[in-house]
């Protein structure tokens, strides 16, 4: 890569946007890139809007805080678009030219003609996939939704390697140094309880990552 890529992940509390950002940033670091990751919480409530931001670059990143001008927008739940459960309106606010949007939806949510026009003008690439469905079917739990989203991201951007992603996942859930906080810790425990072994958790979640690519669809704007 030759320039900084800024990613905004919008979802609902409990869907793993923070964890997805962590794993992605960590994977980028493993690939020798530079990354910063930061979440923005309202308060740590499940199903409330939650956003996190990842910046990936070949060189040192100083900027922090909200990603106001994303190159990639990942939307983990259609309610982000349809119910306004996000910090920015419209959902593609600030998207850079030739930007990418990936939405977790069975069918792409209805968007207005004006929005379509704006997206077309940006030459935006829109993708969608039933990430939660993939997570349930392949990973056995909807808590793997974020992994499906990362699978889609990898498929579209090729920004980090699958190996690095796997290693990051292993580190995150391997019971090593990482200690999750409050609500995240609670969900971690639920996730771990779905699998007999950590190795199984990692294998199945990586299967979700791979399966996500297959169910990814492009959505033509107007």
């Amino acid at each position, binding site marked *: 890569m030759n320039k900084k890529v800024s990613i905004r992940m919008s979802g609902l509390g409990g869907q793993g946007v923070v964890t997805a950002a962590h794993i992605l940033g960590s994977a980028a670091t493993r690939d020798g890139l530079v990354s910063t990751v930061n979440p923005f919480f309202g*308060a740590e409530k499940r199903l409330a809007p939650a956003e996190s931001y990842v910046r990936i670059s070949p060189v040192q990143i100083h900027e922090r*805080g909200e990603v106001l001008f994303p190159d990639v927008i990942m939307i983990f739940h259609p309610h982000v678009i349809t119910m306004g459960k996000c910090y920015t309106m419209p959902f593609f606010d600030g998207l850079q030219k030739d930007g990418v949007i990936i939405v977790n939806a069975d069918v792409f949510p209805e968007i207005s003609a004006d929005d379509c026009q704006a997206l077309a003008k940006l030459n935006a690439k829109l993708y969608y996939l039933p990430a939660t469905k993939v997570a349930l079917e392949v990973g056995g739990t909807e808590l793997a939704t974020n992994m499906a989203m990362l699978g889609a991201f990898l498929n579209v951007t090729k920004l980090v390697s699958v190996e690095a992603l796997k290693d990051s996942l292993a580190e995150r859930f391997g019971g090593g140094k990482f200690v999750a906080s409050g609500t995240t810790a609670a969900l971690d425990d639920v996730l771990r309880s779905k699998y007999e072994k950590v190795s199984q958790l990692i294998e199945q979640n990586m299967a979700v990552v791979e399966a996500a690519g297959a169910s990814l669809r492009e959505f033509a704007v107007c």
Partner: protein
Amino acid sequence: MIEQKVVAPEYLFNEAEREEQFITGSEAVREAIRRANVDMAISYPITPQSESMHLVGDIYAEGYIKEYFRGENEFAVMSSVAGAAMGGVRVFTATGGPGTLRAFEAFPTWAGARLPVVCAFMTRGINSPLSIQPDTLEMAYMLDTGIIMLHAENSQDLYDMILQAFMIAEKPEVHIPVGVFVDGFFVTHTRDRVKIAPPDIKLPPYNPYSAPVPVMDMENPPIRQMRDPFVMKSNFISYAAHASWQQEILAAAERSRRHIAHYLGSLLEAENENAQVMIVASGTAVSQSREAIESARQEGLDVGLVKLKSLRPFPTEELKAVTANAKAVIVPEFNRVGWLAREVRAALEAKVKVVGGPRVFGGMTMPPDLILDEIRRCANE
């Protein structure tokens, strides 16, 4: 728990081989405290600080800290911290935002009582309506409490400054509290690369008998010793005693300059100091400025940067020196009142044009473009 051996602070800070970890600011706090040979820590929840003190609690459970508990409110926590420090142990706590203000009475008295407490302040909004988001307004209130104020730009600074703070605070001729300030969320919750020393070394322990005031343990003289008596002009005791006491607190902060310079390298860092336009900032505003400066350079604009690491004591002379050639100084800030611009203006004594802003607050992010706009304006004037 890993067996740790005591090493010279200089070795821990500068020589020991460091490992790079991809961690949050809160985790950086834990790693600093793990190596700080802290005896005791006291906590109370307040976003965005809580996570740091959870993690400190975890290393207490692992055995790195001897005593740890949750107090009932921030004023109580800061009071218990004072009691512990008077009892002669190395003690750490953290707070932020409304917690800072709830505890406020404690801070000037920490300084007045010569307590070498180290406290991390994870800043956030303090005004009504309630906000948990980053905002450095509380620092304006802290400027004149008498405590030393270091402002971390990122997690690396946070990790380093906490460790260095103990060494600075505990110098017998300093021996006043050090606050390590950091922008909540922008640093505490941001995951970044941080280089940290190995876990099997730690700082030398605190020696309470070198303190400039007697430790309260009934093991050292004088026995007839009250911390800290109020001085009234009722019985030949002059107000001069109180005034002299206060001067001594100011003097202690002055004496810290040399130690801050020793451990942190300097009170401020300047880049491209001959430039006509200089940005002067602290905390996250420095990071945002770096991005703006990069863009400005691509446009051919000549911009320099001053990162203030110590706000109390304030590096007045150093700032004058590094802005000597500037025609304009831009002070971007994460608060609505612009306290840093006031400080900079006072230091530069109207010799340079000081632009107070851009400013964002209430949790808003500062786009580097805002700073860039200001650079363009100043460069073209």
